[in-house]
């Protein structure tokens, strides 16, 4: 299993990349919190000997969440979420859902022991782990999907049943298990601290042009760059230094 710290770092990266105008300390905490729910939930389950918390790692939570958000924000005449929390609430809800699914559940799908995607329908853990490459001698080589018979409904490799996945020594917590996880954790922490410190969209170098950029976000015309570079903004920057 991917360590919970890595889930949190991935959630932080998604928060920085997707929250947009809703990015602040509180919403980041919420999105990072959403990323660690599946890992913490199943850890509690393992500690107490419950199997049912494996449902947190299944595909049902992401699917159900998507359905609820779609119905509320798109199909109903008056969205409860938007009425109570406005545009910010809708944005944060979607990003938190992405965080649970993509930063919380998906990393475990691409490693051992995999995740029980359809639990409690069936108690099989699926895993997508292998290589995919193009060879000039052998063509496309892949070992990602299981060929032939699979134990579960889905055409993916399986690593066993739901229960019995306690890993690691008792009393010890793995925070980072490999090199790439260290890179993800450091990068996530760096990105969040730089953004919370006001670099990036609120960067001093970018700030004067921000108003122009916001209106041009959907059009992305090259002209906006020239219009943004007025003598006035250059002056502001010189004084800023």
């Amino acid at each position, binding site marked *: 299993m991917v360590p919970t710290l890595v889930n949190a770092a991935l959630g932080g990266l998604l928060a920085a990349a997707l929250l947009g105008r809703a990015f602040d300390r509180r919403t980041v905490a919420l999105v990072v919190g959403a990323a660690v729910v599946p890992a913490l939930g199943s850890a509690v389950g393992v500690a107490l000997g419950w199997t049912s918390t494996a449902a947190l790692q299944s595909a049902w939570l992401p699917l159900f969440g998507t359905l609820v958000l779609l119905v509320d924000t798109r199909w109903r005449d008056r969205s409860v979420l938007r009425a109570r929390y406005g545009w910010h609430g809708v944005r944060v809800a979607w990003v938190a859902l992405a965080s649970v699914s993509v930063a919380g559940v998906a990393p475990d799908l691409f490693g051992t022991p995999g995740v029980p995607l359809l639990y409690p329908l069936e108690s099989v853990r699926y895993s997508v782990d292998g*290589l995919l490459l193009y060879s000039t001698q052998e063509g496309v080589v892949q070992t990602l999907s299981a060929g032939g018979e699979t134990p579960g409904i889905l055409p993916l490799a399986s690593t066993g049943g739901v229960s019995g996945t306690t890993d690691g020594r008792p009393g010890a917590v793995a925070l980072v298990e490999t090199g790439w996880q260290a890179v993800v954790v450091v990068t996530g922490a760096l990105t969040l601290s730089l953004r919370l410190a006001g670099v990036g969209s609120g960067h001093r170098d970018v700030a004067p042009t921000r108003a122009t950029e916001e209106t041009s976000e959907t059009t992305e015309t090259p002209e906006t760059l020239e219009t943004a570079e007025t003598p006035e903004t250059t002056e502001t920057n010189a004084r800023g230094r």
Partner: protein
Amino acid sequence: MVSTLVHAGFALVVAAGLLGDAADRRALGAILLVVVLPEADALLGPVYPGAHRTVGHTVVLPVAAGLLLYYDTQQREHSWLRARIADRWIGVAWVALVVHLTAHVALDWTHLEGVNLFWPLRDAFTTLEGELTWSLADGFIQTFVDVRVDPATGQTRVGTDVTGTRASVHVNNPVEPDDPTALAEAEVIDRRFPVAGRGWRLYLLGLGLFTIVARRLQSAPPADA
């Protein structure tokens, strides 16, 4: 090599995260170019042995570029760069440097024989591999960085695992898929272009695609937000 596509995927997430609202298609495209181009050091391999993961994967050049950027845009009275490009692109340049160091150099550092981190100042391939655990009995234990005190001299050595030098290390890539001496004798050369070598690399690639698709689906904030 950690596949170039995997670097690009992770680079997109980090770049979008650092730029926030300023991440449009042109900025992300420019950053991707900075991240992917150093991979071309593989092309130098045949004329400069061990060039791959040395020339384009050192931290010395990006740090030098960063110092130059800082000096020119922050210290000088009349910045050469500010006179030529919009302020926004100076921010993009900073982000490109950070993304190259994290999504490209650092990821390759953890893979196979690692990278020649301080070339040309010091010729040594190093890898970053290890784990960090916390336990009630032992506290935090990390095995990434080796801190050793030489008993004879009393000097402290700090470093990650060294795998060799430019002369001894060859990291396989599509240009030179095997050791140059083995390639010279080989009858057929199997060039392999990886997409993802392990599940987690496929994940990072997918994470980048997800970020881009999700950002496109997002609704623009209302004027008063």
